[in-house]
C-alpha cells in the first residue's frame, strides 16, 4: 500500500496570555490509501488540532512549531497559503462535527455544492449543477434536483451532513478528514453516515482520518486506531489489536468506560480525574496522575513508544519488561 499522509513529530502550539502552550506534542502517524485511521481521545486531547494542522486551518494564534506533514510526498508545512488553498477541498477535504452550522444559511444547497467545483475544477454553472446532482445522488439524498433549490434550514441534520460530505467529495479528494462527523446526529443516522463514508472510501480509494471519541464508531469504521492523550500519541495499533489487546492503561480505561451490550457483567468504569491543563507541566508520563498502574518510574521519566508488533505501539513503561524480553529473545 502506498502512503498518502505522513505526519512526523508534529508540535502545534498556541500563543496565549499564559504564554506559548503546546496542544499537540510530537505526534507521528501515517495514513495509507484506502485506509481509515481513527484518532480517539477525550475532548481537548489535541485530536482536532492535529487534523486542523494537517489542513493548515489553525486559528490565528496557533502555529506548527516543529515536525513535518507529508502529503503524497509533498511537504505541507512549508507551503504558502495559496498553495495550501489549492490543495484544500481538492486533494484534502474535511467534514465537520456540526452539520447544523457548517452550511451557510443564506445560500441554497445547490449554490454551496457548486462552489468547490467552480473554485477548483473551473466548471461552468451548468456543468457544476449536473455534477452537484450526481453528488447528491451519490451520498444517498432522494430527489436531488429539488434539493438543490432548498436552504440548509429546510433539511434534517442527517441530510445536511450528507450535503457536507457531498461538498467535501466534490473534487474527488484523496484524503478525507472527518472531525467527529456523527457526534451531532442521532444513532440511526450515525450508522448510515458511517456506512456512507465507508462505501465512498472504497469507491473512491480515499484515505480517511476520522476523529472521534466514540469507541463504537471506531469499532465500526477503523482499520487502524491512534489513541491520543494530552497532545501525545499513547497507543497505535490495528483495530483488532486495540480492542482485543489494549496495552496502554488509558486505552483500557477508554474501552472500559463504554457500555458493553454483549457482556452483561461488564461494569462501566470511568477514568478518574480529568485531562491536565495545557499549561501544566507533568514530569514523566503525562498520564501517571490518573493511571491506576503508575509506578515510581512513571513519575520520573517519560516513556518512549514501545514496539509491540509491526503495527502496535504503546507509550507506557508497563511494556518495558516485555519489550526487553522480546528483544533479548531475538538477539540471543
Amino acid at each position: 500500500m502506498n502512503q498518502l499522509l505522513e505526519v512526523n513529530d508534529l508540535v502545534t502550539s498556541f500563543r496565549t496570555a499564559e504564554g506559548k502552550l503546546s496542544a499537540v506534542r510530537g505526534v507521528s502517524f501515517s495514513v495509507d490509501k484506502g485506509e481509515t485511521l481513527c484518532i480517539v481521545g477525550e475532548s481537548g486531547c489535541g485530536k482536532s488540532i492535529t487534523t486542523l494542522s494537517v489542513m493548515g486551518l489553525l486559528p490565528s494564534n496557533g502555529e506548527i512549531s516543529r515536525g513535518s506533514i507529508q502529503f503524497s510526498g509533498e511537504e505541507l508545512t512549508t507551503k504558502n497559503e495559496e498553495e495550501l488553498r489549492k490543495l484544500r477541498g481538492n486533494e484534502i477535504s474535511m467534514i465537520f462535527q456540526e452539520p447544523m452550522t457548517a452550511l451557510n444559511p443564506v445560500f441554497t444547497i445547490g449554490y454551496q455544492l457548486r462552489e468547490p467545483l467552480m473554485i477548483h475544477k473551473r466548471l461552468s454553472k451548468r456543468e457544476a449543477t449536473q455534477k452537484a446532482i450526481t453528488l447528491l445522488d451519490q451520498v444517498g439524498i432522494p430527489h436531488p434536483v429539488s434539493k438543490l433549490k432548498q436552504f440548509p434550514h429546510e433539511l434534517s441534520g442527517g441530510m445536511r451532513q450528507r450535503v457536507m460530505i457531498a461538498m467535501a467529495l466534490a473534487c474527488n479528494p484523496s484524503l478525507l478528514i472527518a472531525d467527529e462527523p456523527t457526534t451531532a446526529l442521532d444513532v440511526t443516522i450515525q450508522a448510515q453516515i458511517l456506512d456512507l463514508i465507508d462505501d465512498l472510501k472504497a469507491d473512491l480509494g480515499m484515505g480517511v482520518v476520522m476523529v472521534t471519541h466514540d469507541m463504537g464508531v471506531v469499532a465500526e469504521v477503523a482499520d487502524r486506531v491512534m489513541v491520543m492523550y494530552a497532545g501525545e500519541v499513547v497507543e497505535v495499533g490495528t483495530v483488532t489489536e486495540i480492542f482485543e489487546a489494549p496495552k496502554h492503561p488509558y486505552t483500557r480505561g477508554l474501552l472500559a468506560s463504554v457500555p458493553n451490550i454483549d457482556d452483561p457483567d461488564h461494569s462501566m468504569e470511568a477514568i478518574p480525574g480529568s485531562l491536565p491543563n495545557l499549561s501544566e507541566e507533568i514530569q514523566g508520563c503525562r498520564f501517571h496522575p490518573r493511571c491506576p498502574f503508575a509506578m515510581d518510574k512513571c513519575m520520573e521519566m517519560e516513556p518512549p513508544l514501545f514496539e509491540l508488533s509491526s503495527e502496535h505501539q504503546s507509550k507506557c513503561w508497563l511494556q518495558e519488561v516485555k519489550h526487553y524480553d522480546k528483544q533479548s529473545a531475538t538477539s540471543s
Partner: protein
Amino acid sequence: MASGVISPANTSVKQPKKERMLFQTFKRLCKNKLAVFGMIVIAFQILLAIFAPWIAQYDPVVQNLSKAQLGPGAEGHFLGTDNYGRDMFARLVYGARISLIVGITSVTLGLLGGLFLGLISGYYRKLDGVIMRFVDLLFAFPGILLAMLIIAMLGTSLVNVVIAISIWSIPTCARIVRGSVLSVKKQEYVVAMKSLGASDLRIIMKHILPNCTAPIIVFATMRMATAILSTAALSFLGLGAQPPTPEWGAMIAAGQDFMWTAPHMTVIPGIAIMLVVFAFNVVGDGLRDALDPNMELDT
C-alpha cells in the same frame, strides 16, 4: 449504500426563495403600524422628489416681491410664500429632492467606506488594531463638529456636506460591520469554506457579507434620518446649501427672522424635516425587528 433512507417530505417551493424571504420581511414589517406610517411618508417623499417639476406649479427660486410673505392658502399659494414671494410648496417639494439625494449619496458613500474598513478589520485580525484606532480617532470628534471641520477645510457647498456626512458615517458603520463579521467569522461554515479551498476574498464577499446584511440595512435606514437631519442643521448654520437653493434647513434659517410675521416660513420646513426623520427612524426600528433571525423561525 444508504438505501433505507427515509426521505423527508419533499418540500420544494415553486417561488424563488430570495423573493420569498424579502416578501416575508416586508410582511412582518407591515405588521408594525408605525413602520407602515413611516414607509408611507418615505414613499410620499420619494414621489415628491421624482415628480417635483410636475407637482410644483411655481419655480422654487423665482422671486415675486409683490407677493412676499403670503400666508398658507392665499392667492393660489397652497402653503403661502416666503419673504421673496417664492412659493413655499414648490420650495418644499424641491427640498424633498435635495434632502433625499443628499441622504442617499452620503449614506451610500459612508456605507462603502464603513463596509471596506469593517470587513477588513473584522476578518484580518492583524489590521484590526490599526483600523479600529483610526475609527476611534474619528469617534473622538463630536459628529457635527467633525462635519463643520471638514466643511471649513473644503468650503461651504452641498457636495461638501455630503462628503462631511459620509465621513462622519464611516466609523459607526465600520464598527457595526466589524461586529457582525467577528460573529459570522466564528461560524463553522466559514471554516468549512476554507477547508474547501475558498479564497479570502470569496469568503468575505460571498459568505460573510450576505450574513451581515441585516444590521447594515437597519443602520443605513437609521442613518438616512441622521443624514437628512444633519444636512438641514448644517444648512441652517449656513455651511451647506446656499441661497437660493430650496433646502429645508436653509429655509428655516431664512424664516427665523420672520418668526412673528410669517411663522409658516419656519414651521412648514420644520414639520417636513421632523416627519421625514421620524419616518426613517421608525422604519429602521421596524426593520430591526423584522430582520431579527429569532423571529424568522416562527414564520
